[in-house]
Structures are given as structure tokens and as C-alpha cells.
């Protein structure tokens, strides 16, 4: 997917799944779990991180070019596959950084097994339900128009404009399949695992939760409630950032993440 010359993309077999894994840069391992649109992977954020870390990007089953057997049905399934990957790749003391859906996967992984995870950073993750049955905690992006969704996702909706008409088919297939997989895993319960909220207390590594102040899909209030469930987690808000604050405000985002990662590097 990426045009970066230094890109090193391999296919790793986990059970019956072909997992697409990209590695960039060198240094302590930073496992980056991409958002559901595979946008982060192509952003400058990865290049910045690759200056100090070996950034390892395993695409979740059904996303990017990773395969999706029928038995994979939930973030619960996917998080186990990702833990299997960490074992198989022999990654130690990883910094686990997840964006949006990838943040949810990272949170699931961290509640299950921290043996290979040194610290955790989540950026506008989905995954929990905060309110009661009548509350709309996470805006229903599949019920709304494209324009309404862009307005919720971005501080400035123009930042979310993508011209698909000029995109090669190979890339469009990834976009279309990402959307399909996202719905397959997150349709019901809508964008959350009812059990996850009761498991976040198990995360006993340093944790940072970053949120876009203008995220309208999952608001900063939701983010604060999420962070509060993780013992000792720091919660940081990025001004003028939406659901993907790292894409809209990369400098401010790297400032916040930078301090946290510097500690990670020192610890490694």
C-alpha cells in the first residue's frame, strides 16, 4: 500500500490467516494498529515514529491485505490473533499504539495478555459502552449520510476529502474491503464489546489515551470515561483534532505522544 521506499512488507501466517505486516525504521519495537480505514499507515506519523522505533504494522484480519476467514467474527477474535502474532514474531516489551478501531484491538489485547506489551497508547478508540441502553455513546456512522459522518469525524470536514475516482483498483479494493470488515465486526453490538469495560482494570502497564477535542463520533467525554477505566492512564486532548487527531494536528499529536514514547525508549 505504501510508496515509502524503505517499506518492508511481508505476509505472516497465523493459524489459517495471512497477515500483512509492514516494518519501518529501526529501534525498540512499536506495534502500530491502524485505524479501520488504513489511513494512519500512509500518514507522516509513521515516518516520524520510524526515526526512533522499529514500527511494526500488522493489519488486522479483513483489513489491508490480511485475509479474513469466516470464523473471525469480533475484536475478541482479532485481539487473540494479534497476540499470537506478537508471540510468533518474538516481540518483547512492545509499545502498543492503536488508532480508532486499532485502539480497540490494542485495548482488548492488553486486557488479555501483557507479557509482550511494555506500554499502551490509544487514540480515539472505540470498544466500550459508557451509558445505558437508551444512550447513543457512539454515533451511528452507518445510518448517517456520508456528509454527516465526515462532519462528525473531522474538525474540518475538508480534511477528510479523498478522491476515490483517481485511485487504482487495487487500492479501492482495500478501501471497500476495510469498510465491509468494519461492519462485519462492529455492526452489533455496535462498536463495542460489552465485556471490555469490566476488563480494562487489568491493564497494569503505563497507558496514554489521546483524544481529538472535535471528535464527534466518540466525544472526549467518552474518551475520558475510557481512560478512567485504565488504572493510572493519562488522558490528553488535542485541540482542533477530530476522530483522527494525528491526521489533522500531527505536530500537536506528536508532542503529546513524544514524551510518552521517550520514556518507552529510555525504559527499553
Amino acid at each position, binding site marked *: 500500500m505504501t510508496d515509502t521506499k524503505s517499506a518492508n512488507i511481508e505476509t505472516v501466517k497465523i493459524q489459517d490467516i495471512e497477515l500483512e505486516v509492514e516494518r519501518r525504521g529501526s529501534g525498540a519495537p512499536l506495534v502500530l494498529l491502524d485505524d479501520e480505514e488504513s489511513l494512519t499507515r500512509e500518514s507522516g506519523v509513521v515516518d516520524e515514529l520510524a526515526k526512533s522505533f522499529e514500527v511494526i504494522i500488522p493489519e488486522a484480519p479483513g483489513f489491508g491485505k490480511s485475509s479474513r476467514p*469466516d470464523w473471525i467474527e469480533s475484536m475478541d477474535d482479532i485481539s487473540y490473533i494479534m497476540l499470537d502474532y506478537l508471540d510468533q514474531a518474538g516481540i518483547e516489551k512492545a509499545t502498543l499504539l492503536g488508532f480508532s478501531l486499532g485502539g480497540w484491538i490494542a485495548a482488548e489485547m492488553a486486557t488479555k495478555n501483557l507479557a509482550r506489551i511494555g506500554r499502551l497508547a490509544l487514540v480515539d478508540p472505540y470498544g466500550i459502552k459508557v451509558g445505558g441502553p437508551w444512550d447513543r455513546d457512539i454515533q451511528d456512522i*452507518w*445510518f*448517517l*449520510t*456520508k456528509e454527516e459522518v465526515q462532519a462528525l469525524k473531522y474538525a474540518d470536514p475538508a480534511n477528510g476529502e479523498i478522491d*476515490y*475516482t483517481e*485511485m487504482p*483498483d487495487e487500492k*479501492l*479494493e482495500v*478501501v*471497500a*474491503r476495510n*469498510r*465491509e*470488515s*468494519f*461492519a*462485519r465486526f462492529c*455492526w*452489533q453490538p455496535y462498536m463495542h464489546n460489552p465485556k471490555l469495560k469490566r476488563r480494562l482494570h487489568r491493564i497494569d502497564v503505563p497507558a496514554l489515551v489521546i483524544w481529538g477535542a472535535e471528535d464527534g463520533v466518540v466525544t472526549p467525554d467518552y474518551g475520558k470515561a475510557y481512560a478512567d477505566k485504565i488504572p493510572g492512564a493519562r488522558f490528553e486532548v488535542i485541540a482542533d483534532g477530530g476522530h483522527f487527531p494525528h491526521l489533522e494536528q500531527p505536530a500537536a499529536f506528536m508532542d503529546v505522544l513524544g514524551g510518552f514514547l521517550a520514556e518507552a525508549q529510555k525504559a527499553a
Partner: protein
Amino acid sequence: MYCWHFTEMPYPDHPDPDTVPSVRVSLPNKHFDPKLGADLYNRYLDEHLIADDLGLNIMLNEHHQTATCLDVAAPLSAAILARQTSKARICILGNPMSNRADPIRVAEEMAMIDCISRGRLDAGFVRGVPYEVFAANTNPTQTLERLWEGIDLCVKAWTHRDGCFNFEGKFWHKRSVNIWPTPYQKPHPPVWITGSSDKENIREVARRGFTFAMFLQPHVKVREMFDAYRECSIYDDPEDVRRHIAYMPLVATGETEEEAEGFAKKVAWYLGAKTAPQFRNPPGYVPVSFNVNALKGTYSGRTDAVRTKGIEYLKEQGVLMYGTPDQVFEQVEAFYGHVGGFGQLLMMQQAGHMTHEETVKSMTLFAKEVYPRIREEFDFKPANKGAAAQ
């Protein structure tokens, strides 16, 4: 060939389309007047009784959260008609199995209707149109898997006669299934399934010996899908293959061309009913290849062409058959030729603001002046007569 009367039982009075984003899924039900609803239900059921008197069969369907279709429970309509009609076969097309909570409940309902009607039920199953996933909350990427698992479970419940069986599938778990009653027809009522573009699924319908039905598509597309069905049909006799192939156009028959055109414009209302774009293509309902084209802007839903073009185009395509009895017969005949033959003509003869009097006039003209010619021209060979649809 058998002919079937159909209406979606529409609630025709919608707000100005410019003032609402969609008449399906999200149109507030404050626009529904139950007094008018009561009149409409009774009127549409009366029209089905008239169809029975006229020698037409009856088709029913259901949709949810939409002003285009007040029949939200086809088994309820079928139960009423099973009791109130005497000759017509009653086809539910269909039970939205993918969106049903419990296939065993469906098996029981169908068995009961089949008994009340003394074996006049055709039990159709549908995956459900895209916008139904919002009302049912069915995962749009799993509708086909649910459809087949549900059908398998339902057919097993109909045909298993020796006490309880268990089932632990992907979507449903049952510890002890043993339905009472069983269907009147043995081994079970004819099963019908709809399709529009997924050839592999159509082949699966054929391999099981079920009837395949297609709705409101241009004849070239219909031919392609019917050919896919014929390739895999389990029936040796071409007459039996044909008997298991159904098509639904809009049909409007008038005494004069002018009258027919007036009726045609009214039934074409159905194709123009406004649905918000996100409801027409939820993620994963159609394959990735379709959505690649959607991203390029060359595909915007399953029925775009028929929604936007006029009645002349619809007539050429066989989506809307209208005219004097002679003209309607000629259009059926032409369509039959275009698609390589079919055995069941499902006719949406009422939609939108087509009044009771107009509907009855159109139905009656069809039944008395078109249907006899169709029976003569496209009848099944004598050896197969009386075998109904399956």
C-alpha cells in the same frame, strides 16, 4: 404459466419528497394515520379476495419501517387469506429469514398456514433488501449465511418426523426441535427464493430444486440470471425447470392505451419511492467488486437504472408491462422470448395512488382477457398439470 396478483400494501400519502430524506427506514411514523391504515389493510385484503375469485394466485411480501409497504408480517396476511380464499395459491415471497429471530417459529407459522389453506401455501424466503438491515439490525455482511442456515433449519423442522432433533449452528442453537403441526403438503410446501445478481447463490437455489424469482429487472439481466439457474437445475424435464422460474414486473392493463398508461404511471410510483443513499447500500451487503465501482461513482445501488428512467424504458425492459389486453399479452410473450422462458408471472398490479376501482379494473381485464391466452400459449404440459409450483 401461473399468474399471481401482488401489492406491497403501500401507504401512498407521503410528505413532499423534497422535505424528507427518505420514505423508507426513517420517515417519522407521525405521518401514519391508523384510520387510513385500517381502510388500506382491508382494501388490499379485499383485492386479494377478488384475485381469488378471478382465478389469480396471490403473492404477499413484507417490509419494515417504510411507508411503501404496510404488510409488516406476511404470515399474518397469509393466515387471513388462507381462511378467506378457496382456490388461490398463496405465496409468501418472502419470509425475510435473514432478519428473523427464529427459523423454527417460521417453520411453525408456515405449517399452520399450509394446514388452514389445505395445502395452498408456497413458502418463499428472502435475504431482505439492503435497507431492511437497519430495522432488523442484521449484520449486512451475514445476510446470505443467515438465510441459508435458517432455511436449512426450517426445512429440517418440516420434514423430520421422528421426534426431537438438535441443531447447533452459527446463528441459531436448538436443543429439541419437534414441530406440531407439520405442513399439509409433503414433503413440504414449495420453497421459493429471490435473487438479483449473485449467480452463485442462484445456482444454489437451483441445486436444491427451489423456485427462483427475480423482480423488476431489465430483461438482459433477467436472462443472465435465469440461465445461471437453468445451468444447475436438478430437473430433467424442461417443463419442470420452467415451472421453477418466476419473474415479477409491474403490470397495468387498461381498456384503452390511454387508460393503461394512466394506470402504469400510478404503479410506477413504486420505483420512485425515495430512499436515502446510505440505506440503499449498507457496507458488505454487496460484494467488494460492486463497492469498488461505487467508490468510482459507477454504481449507486441495485436498482438505479429502473428507478430513474421513464415508463417507455421500463416497458422496453419488461420491468413494467402495460397497455390494452392485447398489448400486455404481447409484452409477456416478448419477455418470455427474451429470457428463455419462465413459468410464474408475479404481477405488482397495485402501487401508490392506484385506487381500488382502478386496481380491480386492471386485475379483471388481465384475468379475463390476458390470462386465458397466457394459459393457452404457455401452459405446462398435461403430464405436469396439477403439480402446482413444485
